[in-house]
């Protein structure tokens, strides 16, 4: 209990006075405080008085204590704050702030004024959100007694994505701190000293060279117009803001889409987002408008007439699709799902395949291929990882294997960094880039072929040296002896030689794992390049079990909704909720639910479908994303239907092309890598005549006169999903009921399956559309980061 402005209030241990005041509705002006950042105490505006305390302590750095008597507002404090703000404003273009005609002026200055140098609020891109202006208004600043100093620093516009005008900077340090404390990158810092202090990079390099990842956290934190997103700085206040989930990777960041003139013009992270907590990455923060507003978006359905694709009406196209698809035998049609589809679309697509065309030939071009899912099922009981993002942040050790985390899932590095700040040791097994050393304590550069020996070497060291969680292993794990004896053949020296690393490094990794408590392992698509990815997953899970952390396995899936698409049963052998098609009981349940006879044999997997298409055994193919290996031959296909948002090479052979809505234009749900089902909400109407994928499927089903596809909204589809899929009951992380007893898998070297297939796809893509093709700045960044393509492997 403490007293604040005469009011007795309770407080949480460890809270600062500023937090207590804010929680109790008392406003104290501040400019350097920012949620999630440590107290800094630089702006000196939140000065308060505390009984029996010398001077004017700042509210933002003073911890609340019992019996404190605090005054947050009196004439003396007000005048002190005014004086400080006057000093700040003496170096920030303030003519508009103190102008007595400012209201009238803003009425006439309604259109954006694109000026180079900002000389007043009227010309500032941030005028509608400026915190400095708000504080000045609160304190009633009417004049500045000191001469105005315009620092005349050059505008910095050479780097991609955002502009910097340090003439507007008030050196609150939020950008520096968010980059260091939250993102763990530290690309920028205070440079020089005294009055010349300025935010900058090491040695005055460009941001691109200084390791900036362009996540935009600094831009979002900036209280003034010093940092502004180049693509969206002149749009002013958006007409509306829509909270949705980013569908560009599988982290599941909540974003606020800013809509102006019926288009999504910008996006910024939602501070309430459960997965991202106010953070985003270069894709979510800066790339969405250019991606979804491209001039060559598909706007009409296209059908092939006389060898050419020509615009058609929806009825025409859907009718054609219905008639054609209906012609083939069940074994002759196949469906390839995109891991970027919504749950609703994926659910309806597999329902369409199974109900209308009576085939299980449906699979996804995703990291979540059948062997990976089966291997995960062995570990967790479901086709999913066991970990959550929250868990990552709480881990004592983290291993990232088989992905370039900073490039592929940048927002996860926030949680990794959080764990690291609390003492976690973070290791990277995989590709090597300079910037990684800022994020990882140990970087082990090993090719995917070395994963198996390395992991078995680590496992052997752990088992032999002991120190692992014995209670957990004896109480909850079977087959420890089998594992132990399977490790006998492994020789650490050979392992070190094969991987080209030192034996002590293997020991170091093993020691970290057994001595740092609970851990997390994040594994990415590069494991698919190993001879036996399933074996790698088992090895990783073995390591986690020995460390007593079964809930630490996190798949770094590449598609935004790889998890959801698999959960929805867009797989050749699983119905929704990972119920095997050969399981009679499950099948009956779905036959009843869908009132249809369903195919009983597992369908063809992704490579089998592509092989079938090349050989001619598959006659009709239905593709919902552009992620088809370029080298696939589709010439022998009789009939090809494609969904797309942009023209793709697939269209050369497609007979019908349906224009799909982008994720910013549709409602629905997607499921993140931590199994979190989150809503998508349309920020704008679909471009042209395009439609959400689920609607397209309904439309074709309608033309085929099949019942069970009469939905008028995505939420109706979701309701049905909740009914038939036991995993899904609504939004949020779906419950993974971990087994009581786990099995340690013996280590066994297996050869690569003959049917596997490696192919390349763009590193950053959405439904096969290379983001760097649509967002030119992203191309610059990709070149700088030296990331080319991501290799994927599909196995049968």
């Amino acid at each position, binding site marked *: 209990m403490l007293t604040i402005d005469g009011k007795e209030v309770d407080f949480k241990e460890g809270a600062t006075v500023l937090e207590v005041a804010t929680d109790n509705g008392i406003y104290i002006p501040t400019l350097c405080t920012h949620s999630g950042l440590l107290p800094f*105490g630089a702006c000196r505006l939140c*000065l308060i008085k505390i009984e029996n305390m010398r001077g*004017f302590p700042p509210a933002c750095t003073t911890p609340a204590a019992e019996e404190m008597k605090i005054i947050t507002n009196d004439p003396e404090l007000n005048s002190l704050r005014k004086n400080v703000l006057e000093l700040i404003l003496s170096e920030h273009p303030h003519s508009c702030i103190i102008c007595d005609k400012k209201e009238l002026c803003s009425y006439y200055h309604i259109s954006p004024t694109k000026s180079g140098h900002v000389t007043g609020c009227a010309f500032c891109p941030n005028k509608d959100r400026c915190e400095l202006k708000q504080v000045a208004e609160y304190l009633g600043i009417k004049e500045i007694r000191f001469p105005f100093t315009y620092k005349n620093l050059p505008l910095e516009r050479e780097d991609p994505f955002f502009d910097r005008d340090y003439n507007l900077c008030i050196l609150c340090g939020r950008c520096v701190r968010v980059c260091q404390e939250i993102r763990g990158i530290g690309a920028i810092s*205070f440079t020089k000293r*005294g009055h010349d*202090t300025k935010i900058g990079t090491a040695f005055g390099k460009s941001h691109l060279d200084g390791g900036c990842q362009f996540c935009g956290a600094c831009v979002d934190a900036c209280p003034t117009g010093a940092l502004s997103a180049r693509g969206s700085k002149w749009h002013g206040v958006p007409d509306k803001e829509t909270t949705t989930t980013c569908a560009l990777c599988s982290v599941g960041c909540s974003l606020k889409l800013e809509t102006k003139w019926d288009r999504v013009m910008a996006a910024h992270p939602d501070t309430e987002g459960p997965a991202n907590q106010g953070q985003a990455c270069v894709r979510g923060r800066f790339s969405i408008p250019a991606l979804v507003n491209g001039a060559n978006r598909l706007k009409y359905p296209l059908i092939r007439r006389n060898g050419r694709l020509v615009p058609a009406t929806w009825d025409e196209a859907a009718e054609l699709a219905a008639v054609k698809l209906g012609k083939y035998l069940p074994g002759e049609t196949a469906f390839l799902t995109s891991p970027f589809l919504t749950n609703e679309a994926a659910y309806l697509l597999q329902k369409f395949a199974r109900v209308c065309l009576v085939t299980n030939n449906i699979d996804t071009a995703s990291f979540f291929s059948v062997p990976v899912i089966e291997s995960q099922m062995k570990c967790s009981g479901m086709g999913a990882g066991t970990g959550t993002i929250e868990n990552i942040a709480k881990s004592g050790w983290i291993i990232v294997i088989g992905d370039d985390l900073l490039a592929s899932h940048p927002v996860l590095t926030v949680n990794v960094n959080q764990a690291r700040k609390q003492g976690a040791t973070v290791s990277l097994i995989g590709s090597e880039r300079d910037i990684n050393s800022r994020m990882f304590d140990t970087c082990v550069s090993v090719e995917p072929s070395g994963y198996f020996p390395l992991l078995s070497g680590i496992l052997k060291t752990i088992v032999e040296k002991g120190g692992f969680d014995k209670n957990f292993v004896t109480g909850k794990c079977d087959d420890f002896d089998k594992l132990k004896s399977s490790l006998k053949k492994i020789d650490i020296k050979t392992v070190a030689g094969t991987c080209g690393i030192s034996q002590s490094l293997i020991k170091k990794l093993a020691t970290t794992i057994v001595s740092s408590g609970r851990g997390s392992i994040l594994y990415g698509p590069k494991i698919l390049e190993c001879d036996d990815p399933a074996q790698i997953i088992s090895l990783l899970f073995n390591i986690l079990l020995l460390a007593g952390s079964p809930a630490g396995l996190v798949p770094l899936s590449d598609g935004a909704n790889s998890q959801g698409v698999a959960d929805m049963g867009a797989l050749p052998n699983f119905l929704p909720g990972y119920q095997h098609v050969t399981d009679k009981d499950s099948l009956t349940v779905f036959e009843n639910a869908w009132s249809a006879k369903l195919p009983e044999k597992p369908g063809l997997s992704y490579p089998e479908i592509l092989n079938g298409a090349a050989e001619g055994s598959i006659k009709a193919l239905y593709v919902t994303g552009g992620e088809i290996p370029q080298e696939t031959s589709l010439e022998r296909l009789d009939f090809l239907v494609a969904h797309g948002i942009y023209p793709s090479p697939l269209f050369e052979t497609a007979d019908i092309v349906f224009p799909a809505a982008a994720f910013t234009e549709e409602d629905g749900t997607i499921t993140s890598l931590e199994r979190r089902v989150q809503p998508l909400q349309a920020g704008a109407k679909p471009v042209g005549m395009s439609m959400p994928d689920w609607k397209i499927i309904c439309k074709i089903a309608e033309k085929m006169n099949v019942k069970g596809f009469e939905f008028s909204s995505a939420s109706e589809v979701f309701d049905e999903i909740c009914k038939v899929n036991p995993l899904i009951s609504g939004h949020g992380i779906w419950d993974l009921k971990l087994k009581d007893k786990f099995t340690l898998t013996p280590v066994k070297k297996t050869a690569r399956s003959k049917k596997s297939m490696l192919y390349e796809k763009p590193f950053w893509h959405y439904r096969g559309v290379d983001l760097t093709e649509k967002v030119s700045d992203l191309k610059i960044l990709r070149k700088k980061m030296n990331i080319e393509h991501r290799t994927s492997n599909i196995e049968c």
Partner: protein
Amino acid sequence: MDFAEIRKKAIAGWKDLVSSKTPVIYLGAATCGRAAGIEAVAEEIRKISKELSLNIRLVEVGCIGPCYLEPLIYIQKNGYPSVCYGKITPRKIKKLLEDYLINNDPRPDLALGTLGDGQINGIPGLFEHPMLKYQTRLVLRNCGIIDPEQIDHYIARYGYLGIKKALGMSPSEVIDEVKTSGIRGRGGAGFPTWKKWEICHNVQSDDKYLICNADEGDPGAFMNRSLLEGDPHAVLEGLLIGAYAIGANHGYIYIRAEYPLAIKRLEHAISQMKSYNLLGNNILGSDFSFDIKIKKGAGAFVCGEETALIASVMGKRGMPMPRPPFPAISGVWGKPTIINNVETLGTLATIIRRGGEWFAGFGSKFSKGTKTFSLVGKVKRTGLIEIPLGTPLKTIIFDIGGGTSGDKKFKAVQTGGPSGGCIPAELISLPVDYESLMSAYSIMGSGGMIVLDEDTCVVDIASYFLSFIQAESCGKCSPCRIGTKVMLDILEKIKSGKGEMADIDKLISLAKTIKKASLCGLGQTAPNSVLSTLRYFRSEYEAHIIDKSCPALVCKDLIKYTISKEKCAGCGICREKCPAGAITGKKKKAHIINESLCVKCGICYQVCPAKYGAVEKKTGFLT
């Protein structure tokens, strides 16, 4: 070898040195001596000793204090006390060596005094010298006397007896002893050392840090450098005692990279300590283990501030952090950390060895012990001094310092560096201790003492200190970063004769805001130089503003140089030396300064022969 044996060996070695049969020459080879040219002198001595085949032993010692007499050497011969000579140049040295070492004439006319036991006729003891007579040397007791690179010299002169004694006491007893001594932090703020220690002592932690703050940055201050260069072991022993008292197991010496000699001496001293088991595990056979690392700072003034120093030690930008948490609870790497000044640590060994009560016998009521000052500015005898606290300013400036150079009128003395203030001539009898200086609106600071005479303009001096503070601000908090710049701009405006009376109010209002609202000590004290000069010399500010004149004839925009027609003899020196070509005139005819070309460098004023004194400085012509 146990410590008793080490000590025995060291004492024997020291005796050998001071009663050496072969002549020994001690060289004052601290940075000050080197700057004055001692290395050239040493080279010359080596050469001469070869030429004259004299077997001379050269010993480098630290600085004994009188900087104005550098370079200093001490010649010791045949068991006689060594004789100190000042202002030695390579040219002078040969004659001196011949006279004393060969012809047995110690040259009393050149000698400053004798050092050591015994007497030499005609030469007084060095400590009878007016610069040293009034001093009490506790911290500096070894400076200029022992070879700082010889741990044995230090040990022979009661070194490491303090830590030996402390290890026989409990840490609380050590803290009590320090409490009895009454010593307060010598870095500036004057916080009782024992109080700081006690907080840290009571915190439970596996790791604790004790840092020696050697980031001496005040303009004109060199107390810490001298001590580290002249007697590094005294500071290191203090670190051991402090670490033992608070239970620290790691030590840092945060020292600016601009002190290469001090760093070298410290590194050397630390390696010697290790070889004597005075550092490392189980020091002197006790349970106490401690290690010391040297962390070089890049020379930022603000890094003397505790939290900024901690940030710098951790490799971060030296920016102060908010308190709480206080360093004593959470400092370096989040562990309890105590930061003590070089001089505080340098005093500890003596305090423990001789007892707190003995130490408290020096000084005044609330300010115990002695304090070192670097006495600089417009004073005859500049140098490093150590006086008991409570000594009046008058003794320091006139008795020790010998009054102002050129016997001009004494105007004020600036104490406490950029954060301190000016004490005017009226307060010359003020005793120098924490309270008295505070009552005169200045501070003790770390010990800089800059004497100002009538030729010093207070507006100029205030703007000098403010420009220093302004440039050294870390840039974190807005009042300090921007406020000091705005104040400086106003001072510049006043100096250029464009000031208005309202500017004085603005200065005071800004100063108040900066003092109240700044984050760290640097900002909170930043306006002091302006406030104290305004308090004591407001009329001088007003002269700049109202009369547009600079009474001290310093501010360039308010003065002009003229040549008196009557006095000028037309010697032409000024015309030759004028860098701007502003002076014209024919030989043996009065010269004239062309004002539009004059850059007011004052060279003509300096070069005009005193017998003419024709160049005159004028002010007040603008109104």
